[in-house]
């Protein structure tokens, strides 16, 4: 029995080992690129589920990625400040923004789709402000990082391998934080708040503080994802990184995999990025739009028939089977 219990751990260790050795396998650089993208989106989507699993559907994670990315890149481009320093300023900015937005929303009791629409408006607001200051940010045309070749002190590498490990570390960090939240009393408090806010506050749970806290943590991890993404792609665009579209992509990845489980968001990121890249490479960009149409239909079907997501439904099914098996075993002496 003990050996069986250790099986998942062994599988995880094996996957981790594979992940670490992966960039050294003599495959095309392209696969490393796909893995980096999957890790970044996986981390950001996991960060999104910190809030979403307690009923706070944020549609401003695109903005949370964009604000620190733009901060650090602008500081580098205009003042030649190393992104290693600039990223902390960017993260500070995102923390402040998340505190302000979170506190305002939760203090005034915005829940459910009021919260979702408000965060959506905030995303659009941030994107529009970035577009409006087009002299500095490049507007809709986007912002390119001044290239320096390989300059480790300035967070620039020609090779993909450093980015691969950074993205992997970020993903592991986001999963670790998910576990930490799940095991702490914060989880209990937020679950109670998600069930019934008034009842939760009546037994002494500080609703605003817990919700704002988890919103800030989520925003910080998403912000780190934005910074790594910006330094890796070397190009930021207000429409494809900050606006509604990426925010919805994050939401879809979370739902596709299942937003209530640890690995769900990651599975969603793998499926969506994988499919996207496969279609782009095999059929070219012409079909990309139709691929999105397909995703749209798939998401609708999943929401109607598998509201817990692919991985979430799978895990639940396995759990039920195990439970019924255990019941049968205990019933027969």
């Amino acid at each position, binding site marked *: 029995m003990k050996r069986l219990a250790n099986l998942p751990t062994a599988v995880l260790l094996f996957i981790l080992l594979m992940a670490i050795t992966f960039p050294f396998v003599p495959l095309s650089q392209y696969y490393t690129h796909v893995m980096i993208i999957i890790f970044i989106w996986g981390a950001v989507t996991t960060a999104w589920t910190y809030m979403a699993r307690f*009923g706070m*559907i944020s549609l401003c994670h695109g903005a949370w990625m964009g604000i620190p990315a733009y901060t650090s890149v602008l500081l580098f481009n205009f003042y030649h400040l190393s992104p290693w320093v600039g990223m902390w300023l960017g993260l500070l900015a995102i923390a402040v923004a998340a505190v302000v937005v979170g506190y*305002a*929303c939760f203090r*005034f009791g*915005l829940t*459910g*789709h*009021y919260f*979702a*629409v*408000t965060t*959506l*408006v*905030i995303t*659009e*607001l941030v994107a*529009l*402000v970035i*577009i*409006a200051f087009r002299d500095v940010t490049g507007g809709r045309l986007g912002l390119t990082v001044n290239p320096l070749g390989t300059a480790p002190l300035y967070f620039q590498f020609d090779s993909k391998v450093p980015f691969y490990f950074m993205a992997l570390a970020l993903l592991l960090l986001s999963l670790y934080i998910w576990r930490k939240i799940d095991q702490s009393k914060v989880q209990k408090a937020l679950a109670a708040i998600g069930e019934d806010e008034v009842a939760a506050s009546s037994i002494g749970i500080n609703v605003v503080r817990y919700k704002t806290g988890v919103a800030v943590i989520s925003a910080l991890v998403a912000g780190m994802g934005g910074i790594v993404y910006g330094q890796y792609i070397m190009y930021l665009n207000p429409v494809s990184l900050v606006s*509604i579209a990426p925010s*919805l992509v994050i*939401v*879809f990845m979370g*739902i596709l995999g299942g937003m209530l489980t640890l690995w769900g968001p990651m599975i969603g990121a793998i499926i969506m990025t994988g499919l996207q890249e496969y279609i782009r490479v095999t059929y070219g960009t012409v079909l990309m*739009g*139709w691929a*999105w*149409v397909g*995703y*749209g*239909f798939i*998401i*609708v079907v999943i*929401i*109607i028939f598998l*509201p817990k997501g692919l991985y979430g439904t799978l895990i639940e099914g396995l759990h039920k089977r195990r439970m019924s098996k255990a019941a049968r075993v205990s019933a027969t002496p």
Partner: protein
Amino acid sequence: MLILNAVINGIFFGGSLALLAYGLNLCFGVLNIIHFFYGQTVMVGLYIIFTLTVWLHIPLIVSCLVAVAVIAALHIVVHLGVVQPLLKAPLLNQFLALASIMIILENSAMGIWGATYRGVPISLPVLSIGELYIRTSNLIAFLGCLVVVGLLYLFLNKTYTGLAIRAIAQDTEMASLMGMNPRRVYLITLALVGVLAGVVAAFFVPIYAVHPHWGGTFTLMAFVIVVLGGLGSLAGGLLAAFIIGVVMMVASFLTIPEGGPIAAYLIFLVVILLRPQGLLGARVRA
């Protein structure tokens, strides 16, 4: 004088916005769902009118009527396929399902019509009164939208179906105990919402050239107006539409083109935090 021009344009713009916001408001009031792809349906309508008039040389009026019918049909299909199965689901699932329909519509438009701007070339004269310049197309849209708003008011207040819609919006359970069929009312409401979107599209034809991501801004603007005017308040919606229209036009005129939407979103944030029932809304919140 130029600023007066901006104010007048804003008032005209507000007329069309009011019609958009009514559709959203009806949907929210009756079905309690956020119609996330409303602007996108208007976009589809504009594309249909473009295809019929420019590519197939069908008279404009006919193609406008076809567009209204197609959008109403689209709403009925979405209702039967997506909204009805999710009526008892958590609010967020409904929200996200409708957001996916937005993705479907935008990318289908991208696939069919491409990313270029498509417009029907109609040139209407510009009226000039002293130093004021008024585009006839804006004036027609304004008057037309006001007429439709009036018709909508009459429909909701003077017909049995309108009474049923309002009753369901107030209390679904009670209304169904009184012999109204919520399912039928939901279907009629969504079809009506579709007709409104189609009418807006018809009035927008001479004003806008359309591209696949055209709709998003208008959906958000409609939200802003619904929240500012107060949920379920038709008069509030009308007032809010004019306020937002004027604010947007004046702010864009005084600053940069993005200034308008930025001002509107800021108003939205202030209102939803400090006065969530809106300007004229009742003090009730779910």
